[in-house]
C-alpha cells in the first residue's frame, strides 16, 4: 500500500512534501521509459506497452533540508482509446506531457488528428498531440497544476540529426506561451530526465501542507487494511 502518511510535514528545518504526478502523451512516445529511468535508473529498448508499472514513487532532495516525493501515475494504457478515467486527473499536482521529437506523424492516434493534419503541417503533428493533452489537463485537472512538456528520444537525434521532426524552438515557443516547463529528454541515455523532475519539484508549492490530498487532509479519512477489528481508529469527526 502506498504511503498515506502526512503528505506534507516539517520537522525542525527539514521539509518533506508528497505530490501526485501524472504522465500523459500518445502511446509509444516513452512515458513509461522516462519514469523507469527516473525511478529505477533503467532502460529497456523493447519495452512492451505499459503493463504493471502503473504506480511508482521516487524522492528528490532539493537541498539538505527539502525532500520531495513524487507519487507517479502511469496511464496503464488507458489513453490508447481515450478512456482515461477522471480519477486519473483527480488531485494531480503536476503532469509530464510527453511527445516524440522524431515522430512527425505518430504511429498511434491515427484517427484523432486527421482533421488537425489538414490544418497544420505534418511536421507539427506530434507536438500538436501534446498540445491536445495539455488542453485535456486544463479541462480535467486542478487549475494550478504544474505541467512540463518533454520531447523524448533525444538520443535518436543526437545520433542522426536528420531524424528530428519537431524543432526545439517550436516546442520551446509553445511551452513559453502556455506556461509549461520544457525539456528535451532521452530515457535511453538519461539526458535531462532528472533535470525534468527536479525543475518540477522546484516549482511545486512546498509550503502548502498536505499537497497530496488537499481533499481529505486530516478530516477523518479511514485507512483500509485487512480486517483486524479493534485496531483501526478513525480520525476526528467533523460533525
Amino acid at each position: 500500500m502506498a504511503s498515506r502518511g502526512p503528505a506534507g510535514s516539517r520537522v525542525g528545518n527539514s521539509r518533506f512534501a508528497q505530490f501526485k504526478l501524472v504522465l500523459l502523451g500518445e502511446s509509444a512516445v516513452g512515458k513509461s521509459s522516462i519514469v523507469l529511468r527516473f525511478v529505477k535508473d533503467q532502460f529497456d529498448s523493447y519495452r512492451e506497452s505499459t503493463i504493471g508499472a502503473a504506480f511508482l514513487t521516487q524522492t528528490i532532495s532539493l537541498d539538505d533540508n527539502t525532500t520531495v516525493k513524487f507519487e507517479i501515475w502511469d496511464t496503464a494504457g488507458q489513453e490508447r482509446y481515450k478512456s482515461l478515467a477522471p480519477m486519473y486527473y483527480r488531485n494531480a499536482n503536476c503532469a509530464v506531457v510527453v511527445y516524440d521529437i522524431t515522430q512527425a506523424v505518430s504511429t498511434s492516434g491515427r484517427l484523432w488528428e486527421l482533421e488537425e493534419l489538414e490544418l497544420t503541417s505534418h511536421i507539427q503533428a506530434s507536438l500538436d498531440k501534446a498540445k491536445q493533452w495539455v488542453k485535456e489537463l486544463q479541462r480535467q485537472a486542478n487549475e494550478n497544476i504544474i505541467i512540463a512538456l518533454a520531447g523524448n528520444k533525444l538520443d535518436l537525434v543526437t545520433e542522426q540529426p536528420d531524424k528530428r521532426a519537431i524543432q526545439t524552438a517550436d516546442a520551446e515557443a509553445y511551452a513559453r506561451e502556455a506556461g509549461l516547463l520544457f525539456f528535451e529528454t532521452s530515457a535511453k541515455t538519461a539526458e535531462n530526465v532528472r533535470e525534468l523532475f527536479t525543475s518540477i519539484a522546484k516549482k511545486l508549492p512546498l509550503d502548502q501542507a498536505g499537497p497530496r490530498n488537499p481533499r481529505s487532509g486530516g478530516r477523518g479519512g479511514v485507512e483500509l487494511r485487512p480486517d483486524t477489528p479493534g485496531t483501526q481508529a478513525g480520525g476526528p469527526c467533523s460533525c
Partner: protein
Amino acid sequence: MDEIAPEYDVVVFGTGLTECVLSGVLSVKGNKVLHIDRNDHYGGEAASVNIETLFKKYGNYNKGEEPWKKYGRANDWNIDLVPKFLMSSGELTNILVSTDVTKYIEFKQVAGSYVQQGSGAKATVAKVPSDAGEALRSSLMGIFEKRRMKSFIEWVGTFSRTDSASHKGLNLNTCTMKDVYDKFGLEAGTRDFIGHAMALYQTDNYINEKGTAPDTIERIRLYGNSVSRYGKSPYIYPLYGLGELPQGFARLSAIYGGTYMLNTNIDEVLYEGNKAVGIKATMQDKGGDEPMKFTTKCKKILADPSYFPGKAQVTGQLLKAVCILNHPLAGTDNCDSAQLIIPQSQVGRKHDIYIAVVSSAHNVCPKGYYIAIVSTIAETTANHHLELAPGFERLGRIEEKFMGPPIPLYEPLESGVNDNIFISKSYDATSHFETTTDDVRDIYRRAEGQDLVVDGLREGTNLVNDE
C-alpha cells in the same frame, strides 16, 4: 493507434461496478480482457454524475433555463445514481484491500446509522445501537428491554454455527428467527430495528423462514464488526462518490493489460451454434473523426443486463429520488453523512424506505449542501411519489428533487454456460454492496467454473512494483 487484438479471453460490456471488479480480477489472473462501454464515462448505472448532467438526465426544468448554475461549479458535484454505502467489514472492502485498489481511492466513515420509530407527527429518529454498551444507552428501548437486548447482542457475539453449546438449546437447522427473538423475549419494536437496521432485511419475510436464523445472526454480526472497525457507523464511503469504485477496478484491469474502450457500441454478437464467439463493434470519436469499426473473437462475454435485455427478466421496481438539501438531516446530530432506515412496519409498508445522506465532507458537493437519496421497492403501480413520502418528511426543506419513473431491476434468465454470455444483476435496493459482491462471485463461478479467491490475489504476479 494499436490495433484491436484478433482474440480476447473475455470481452466485458458495461463499466458498472460488478463488471469492473470482474474485469480487474480476471486481468490479474492473466486473462486478456477487452472492456467496452457504450457511454463516454465509466460506471454505467453505478456512476456518479455532476449536477448539470443530473438536471439533463431528469429534464426537470424549462427549456432555456440553466438551473444548475446556481449550485456553483458543476464539476464540484459527484452525485451517485445508486444509493449505497460500503460495509466496513464487508466483502467489497475485502476485495479493495486484496487488490490494492485502495491505492487509488480514499474512504471516509459514514457518520451515523439511524432508524425511525413511529410515523407521521409521532415519528422519532434514533441511533442504531451497535454494541451492548450502546444498547443500554439507546432511546429505542425501555429499561427492561435494554437488558434483554444487551444479552441478545452478547449472545450474537459468542454464537458459533458449529458449536451447539452456543445455540441456547434451539435447533438452528429448523427454528426460525421468531423462535430466537422469543427466546430472548424481545419486543416487536426491538425486533424491528434488529431485523431492518442491523440485519438490513428490507422485508419481514426472514422472521418465519425455517433454518435461516444463523444467516440473520451473521448479518447482525457483520453490522457489529463493521461498526467496531472504525467506530461510528458500519459504513464507509469513497471520497468523490461511488463512481470512483468502478474507475479504480478498471485501472486495476488496465494495469494488468486490460484494454478499455468507452463510447463504443456493440453492433453484433457473433455466434457459432448457440455460443457467443466474438463481437462487431464501433468506437465513436468525440472529436468528430471517422468511427472505428472492428471485429474480434472472444471466449466469453460478461455484460450488464442492459446489453442483453432479451436475456434478462424484471424482478422488481426500485423507486428513487435524489434530493439536494442545504441542511443536515434532522435528528442526526448534524452529521455530515448518515443512513436512516424507516422500517416497513412503522409506515404500513412491506418494504423499508432508505435514506442515504452524504455531503461536502465526502467531496460530492460544495460546502453547505447535502445529497439525500430516498429509495424503496415499488409496491404500487402509480403514486410512487406517495410511497416515498415518509422519507421526504424526514428531509425537511428540499432544494431540488430528481425522481424518474420506477427503475426496473433485472436478473439474468440463464447462467450463461450455454451461450458463453454471463450477465450480471441490477444494483438492488439494499443499502450496501454485499449483494453486488455476491453477484461478482456468482458470475465468476459460472464463467470460470471455480470459486473466486481474492485473498493474496496479487501475490506471485510479476509486476514492477512500488518501492
